[in-house]
């Protein structure tokens, strides 16, 4: 049977020194030794942490506006868009009579894949991905975060368009309306 491809020639007699493997062992040890004097790359994790980039996507969280209101209006868009269906919302009326609010807002963090679709789709900018990345849990129930926990994680983000002032006619709404009207005319 003819050989296919190139035949590899192997060195036959490499001498006694090479046959003892000593040069190879010393060469390997020299590489190890060299690494001792190189800069250390290990990050001492619990003490040191990595500087996460600005656009890092960690666990999602709900936010309140500067008036202390839950920004979420239970429109169900995030629940609809969520690829692993990690979000569970139940809506309720809120006292303002204008908007809805979430009665129940659970995110199953074990389902969540931190894709950021909820943040992207949210019309009220009520849900954000935090930089939280080292949360772990001991049970599945523990990792379903309820509304209160999500709000505590998210904190406060001011509402630049002052939606509530326009909708409910409180807190300087007359001035807002007047100035807006003036601008339109």
């Amino acid at each position, binding site marked *: 049977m003819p050989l296919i491809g190139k035949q590899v020639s192997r060195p036959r007699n490499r001498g006694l020194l090479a046959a003892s493997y000593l040069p190879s062992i010393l060469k390997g040890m020299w590489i190890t030794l060299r690494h001792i004097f190189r800069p250390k*790359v*290990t*990050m*001492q*994790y*619990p003490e040191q*942490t*990595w500087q996460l980039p600005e656009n890092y996507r960690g*666990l999602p969280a709900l936010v309140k506006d500067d008036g202390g209101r839950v920004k979420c209006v239970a429109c169900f868009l995030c629940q609809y868009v969520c*690829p*692993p*269906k990690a979000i569970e919302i139940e809506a309720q009326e809120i006292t303002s009579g204008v908007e809805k609010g979430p009665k129940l807002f659970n995110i*199953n*963090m*074990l*389902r*969540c*894949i*931190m*894709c950021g679709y909820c943040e992207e789709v949210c019309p009220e900018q009520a849900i954000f991905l935090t930089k939280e*990345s*080292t*949360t*772990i*849990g*001991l*049970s*599945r129930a523990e*990792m379903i975060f309820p509304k209160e926990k999500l709000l505590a994680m998210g904190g406060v983000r001011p509402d630049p368009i002052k939606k509530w002032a326009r909708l409910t006619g409180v807190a300087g709404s007359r001035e807002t309306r007047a100035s807006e009207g003036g601008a339109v005319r």
Partner: protein
Amino acid sequence: MSETLQGPIEGAGDDRTFDQWVMTTRLAEYVAWGRKNSLWPMPMGLACCAIELMAMVAPRYDVARFGAEALRFSPRQADLMIVAGTVVKKMAPAVKRIFDQMPDPKWVIAMGACASSGGMFRSYSVTQGVDEIIPVDVYIPGCPPRPEALIEGVMRVQQLLDDRARARRPSGAGRREPVGAGR
């Protein structure tokens, strides 16, 4: 312990008591201390989470600092299974069998969304969480989780192990007496 050993040791040159000279412990806690600092993980890498699992062992994160760097590809030598990735129904019997082959005591970390709950694969072909087939101790969310999160998981397993050993103490669960306190 006799009365004479409670006081300062004569001729020792200082006033340390017997309890301060000799460290005593319970066998269960001693064994747990050994186990805790030499967890040998079984890398059950099934998908992309395994890349982060490798990163955890690599020099940057270096899980050797916690004694868990000896990844054993033989289940007989491992005591911590890290399920990293999507457990499809076809793979599930193999995962279960490998878990059964691991000697007791053993722990399981479900790493990432897929292993913890099925993640985005709500599919007929995917196990909805590896805890449907084997008991899981620590769940790590993320897709994939950062190596830091996995290190947190390993540290949590170490803590669980310690707690379990200490809970066997008849004089009160989870209580640690300071070394050298009067017994």
